[in-house]
């Protein structure tokens, strides 16, 4: 099951997380927790109009949640809200079914495929995505 869970791509993101730290002037700061693991995640989001111009994360979490968050920030930085929502949908399909929707290249995120088999760990990988969604809702509400 978890044989290839800790593959090189995942370990790379865990050891050298992209966009780690705090932003100075985030438009939105949003927090997520995974009570089961005790994971705590803070996302700083900087929007310019429709674009997520900058994003960074901090907190504590397991390798999967840290790597998943790092991959998310790398993928979504600079994207429009519409694109982000599309990627969120893709990610949900990917994590539910263990493979990307037809024709979609998930990039590094593909390395999380093993997580889809593990109901208890799925939440670790989904945490940044649900946290980001809350951030989007808040941004749209402003």
């Amino acid at each position, binding site marked *: 099951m978890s044989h290839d869970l800790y593959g090189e791509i995942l370990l790379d993101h865990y050891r050298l997380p992209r966009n780690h730290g705090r932003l100075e002037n985030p438009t939105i700061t949003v927090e997520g927790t995974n*009570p089961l693991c005790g994971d705590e995640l803070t996302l700083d989001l900087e929007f310019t109009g429709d674009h997520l111009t900058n994003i960074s994360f901090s907190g504590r979490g397991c390798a999967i949640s840290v790597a998943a968050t790092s991959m998310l920030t790398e993928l979504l930085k600079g994207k429009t809200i519409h694109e982000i929502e599309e990627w969120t949908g893709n990610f949900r399909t990917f994590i539910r079914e263990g493979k990307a929707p037809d024709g979609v290249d998930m990039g590094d995120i593909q390395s999380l495929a093993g997580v889809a088999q593990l*109901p*208890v*760990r799925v939440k670790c990988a989904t945490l940044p995505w649900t946290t980001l969604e809350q951030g989007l809702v808040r941004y749209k509400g402003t």
Partner: protein
Amino acid sequence: MKTITEIRKDFPILNMKVNGKSLVYLDNAASSQKPVQALDAFCRFCESRYANVHRGVHTLGEHATTDYEAARTKVAEFVNAPSSKGIIFTRGTTESINLVAYAFGRRFVKHGQAILLTPMEHHANLVPWQLMAKSVGAELRFWPMKPDGTLDMEAGKKLLDSSVALVAITHVSNVLGTINPVREIALMAHQVGAKVLVDGAQAVPHMPVDLTEIDADFYAFSGHKMLGPTGIGVLWGRLDVLEDMEPFLTGGEMIKEVYLDHATWNDLPYKFEAGTPPISEAITLSAAISYLNDVGMEWVYSHTRALTSKAYELLSQEPGVTVYGPAVDRGPVVAFNVAGIHPHDLAALLDQEGVAIRAGHHCAQPLMRWLEVQATARASFYLYNTMEEIDVMMDAIRMAKKVLRVA
């Protein structure tokens, strides 16, 4: 399609001899027997996939969690629940109803409001409401019944006004066999703003049940009456109603965050599943449901209906026998009495012939008073019973009359 002979082979206990006679098990309304498929599922699970659920990140923990959640989905599909998030595993119908009485009743039913019940309720759907009503100062009302043991719909409508907070009603009576029009009643109740709980303990095992169509707010049933194990039951609830409720039992699993002085709750359905749930029971129940699905609930329904008709007819023709409940459109339960024979003696004498029926008040003492009897005998059927077994029962009844010198 399995033949009845094939079905019977799946239930090893049916080969038992009782007092030297072949067992004729007609106490299915109390509890059903279990097919080897369910027992095997239990053993296989314990021998290769067992661990506690929702907690471990190790492989067995993952397997157990997957199987447990698959069982939830299986149950949801079996009764066509709108969402499996509304399926809460409990210990049985009794706990399911108590959960609603505590977590919904004591919170949302107000002083001066009413709970509308029927006189045919099982104690499980009566006593929790008595205590709840007393604790909040609510009133209990009882939907009148017609002499044949069906609900008097006109008379009931008059009691169903806007002061009614909840209608709690059995789907199928465990004594009379009456099948209540729960969909119609749910509609009527919702029109006056009342919530509806249906006790489905005697319905789900015996007929196709469609929770989406019935559209009640709560629906309760037990695993052990539907080929499954003891120790597990189901409460289905509408998500919006469940969301508004506070938890009932508290502890591990149902929490999000716990501090020394307070805690926050997990999402549905976990909010209502405190502590280690009935894990292997869920897996075993799931196998029982697969079995029922294979046989087909339509077949189960028509087969037991045919048995019931025959039993009803033969018993009605037998001198000195009184049969209770409606003559047609009934569940597979026939309650009756033989003049001059106490039902306990009847059951004991039938047992000498290998025939297992039940005798007593069937956890429905108020209904006994309504019927003006102390107790009744009751034969109840399931998919593995045969027409011949009803003949054996009738012979045994005649034998009992002889022993006790009843004409």
